């Protein structure tokens, strides 16, 4: 493994970009296009993803959101947090609404960017069809899925993005259950198989990486997609001061992998020098606290297997 040092802060890097939060903050524009006063829980990872996305996009953007936490907490009539044009229509149609916005802009001869910011439910489950249509048609939109791994807005029900072993209100642990018994849907690869020019994963724990990816996504012609992990203190069960830490831990344990797929070519962005044991990530959250050692080692084995394959191929 080759390392370089960040020219600005000196951090040791295994990738081309600095993952340090300090530097990230320094490099971002001061202008806030998402106003304070929104109703997100304290420590909400998703609202950070929204705020940073707007720092990456600037003002010349139209935001489309499906129903979900971020829509609800930012638009309580007659207030709004959005200083850019914004539309919310329904839960399952953001891909289609964004297509309409983009086609209208095209007719009007405008270069304004179209940015969807949707939850995992609105993206990988009920919104999958409309999104698939938009991707397949090659609409010029950027779609960010903020993944808090459940339907948080309606009270933490499972989604197709809920990870193996997690407890939600519809996948409770009980005498016959250890919680969610299926692995997470591999949404970034589902998107990539639509032959789109740019797909990336990110974590709010590594904000600079995320912001750079949003910028890149917005700059490509055609559909682009970013799947960003956004820890949710309310749904996952951790102290609201720990969101960034958990976002990092997900990556550092290897449970969440940062990669890009550019024109079909996949590139791992960050290889943790020494992967931390998954138990550190799991035990930090109420939703995994019930897991037996058996299940935990099963999760560890699966993460090891995936990384072995990755390391072999790089």
């Amino acid at each position, binding site marked *: 493994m080759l390392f370089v040092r960040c020219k600005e802060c000196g951090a040791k890097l295994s990738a081309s970009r600095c993952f340090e939060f300090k530097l990230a903050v320094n490099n971002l524009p001061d202008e806030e296009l998402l106003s304070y006063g929104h109703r997100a829980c304290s420590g909400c990872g998703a609202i950070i993803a929204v705020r940073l996305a707007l720092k990456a996009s600037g003002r010349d953007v139209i935001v489309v959101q499906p129903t979900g936490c971020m*829509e609800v907490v930012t*638009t309580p*009539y*007659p207030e709004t947090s959005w200083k850019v044009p914004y*539309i*919310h229509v*329904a839960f399952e149609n953001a891909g*289609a609404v964004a297509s309409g*916005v983009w086609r*209208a802009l095209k007719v009007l001869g405008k270069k304004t960017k179209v940015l969807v910011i949707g939850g995992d439910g609105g993206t990988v489950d009920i919104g999958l069809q409309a999104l698939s249509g938009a991707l397949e048609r090659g609409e010029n939109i950027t779609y960010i899925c903020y993944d808090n791994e459940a339907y948080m807005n309606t009270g933490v029900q499972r989604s197709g993005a809920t990870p193996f072993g997690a407890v939600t209100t519809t996948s409770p642990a009980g005498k016959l259950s250890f919680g969610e018994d299926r692995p997470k849907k591999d949404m970034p690869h589902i998107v990539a198989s639509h032959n789109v020019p740019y797909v990336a994963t990110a974590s709010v724990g590594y904000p600079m990486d995320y912001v750079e990816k949003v910028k890149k996504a917005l700059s490509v012609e055609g559909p682009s997609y970013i799947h960003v992990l956004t820890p949710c203190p309310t749904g996952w069960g951790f102290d609201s001061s720990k969101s960034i830490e958990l976002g990092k831990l997900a990556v550092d344990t290897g449970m969440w992998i940062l990669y890009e797929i550019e024109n079909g070519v996949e590139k791992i962005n960050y290889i943790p020098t020494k992967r931390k044991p998954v138990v550190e990530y799991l035990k930090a959250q109420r939703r995994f606290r019930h897991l037996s050692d058996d299940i935990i080692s099963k999760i560890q084995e699966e993460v090891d297997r995936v990384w072995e394959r990755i390391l072999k191929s790089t």
Partner: protein
Amino acid sequence: MRDIVEGSRAVAEAVKLCRAKVISAYPITPQTHIVEYLAEFVANGELDAEFVRVESEHSALSVCVGASATGVRTFTATSSQGLALMFEVLFIASGLRLPIVMVNANRALSAPISIWNDQSDSTAVRDCGWIQVYVETNQEALDSVIQAYKVAEKVLLPFMVCMDGFVLTHTYEPVDIPDQRLVDDYLPEYDPPIKLDPENPVTIGPIADPNYYMEFKLVQDEAMNEAKRVLKDEDEKFGEIFGRRYGLIEEYRTDDADVVLVTMGSLAGTIKDVVDRMREKGKNVGLVRVRLYRPFPKDEIVRALKDFEVIGVIEKDNCFGFGGGALFHDVRSALYGKSNAKVIGFVAGLGGRDIPYWDIEKAYEMCYEARVKEVPDVVWIGVRDWFRR
């Protein structure tokens, strides 16, 4: 230009004349020809528009919502199952006050699945906040699409032009296709007061708590009432330019009529023939065709019907568990306290069942009977006798 064209073609010509900029639709019989013509116009460069080939009707209408909110004129068309799939977005389009125009090619709803004509699909969404017009001819379909954009963009409400599937969509009739110049004079460019624009950022589609929701709905209801007046005016102006007017309702030989039938859509054509025939045999019958169904032209209906002793409402839909169709209930409700007429609801033509002239004659006969004896409130006509038991 006068031409003999298919109903679907007449609609497509109207959309072209109105210069719709974003068109999005999903194929379903009997709507398909409309969007095929439009796709062809766009492919040939005859119509400068984006044609968005979506993966469902839910998405078709959602594309129109996004595009309309961004400030361009939009069009979609559907039918039956497709309209049902749009249900959620229908209410959002009207709640967001977007002047989208849709043609619904009326078709029966499944199950059993049927591709044939009735009006159960659009009458089922009568309260979704869209203006609804039911047309009798292909000429009226074309003209109504042009009027629809004008009215919708004035009152900021979506507009559904309902035309009977096959009976109109697939039938060739002589149609006058107006001059582009005249349509441009009648219909100015779409320039909404609020749109998605980085120069002036707005939030569209917020969450409204119980403190605010009702006012949104009240102004929406007021806009709906306003639409009635605006359609009346615009129909008048349309008449001055194009020489054709349709009104909100149409009265056919009702002045001296003993009994009257009420209907919507292309069935009116058949009924007018029956009226003429029966009158030759000394039976003075008449017809009222409801063109504007939502907002419901209550005053016009009361004025036209209140002095009749017996009124039959014949329509191609049914309200399960109440009996009779939606129009029957609406007519009866409009007349409540204003007239003592006996109103009979005739359910006919479901799932494409033919409505021959003798069934219409039977309906008129039953109206005559009702003047002298008790008849049921609701009668299904054209149903096999053995099935009735």
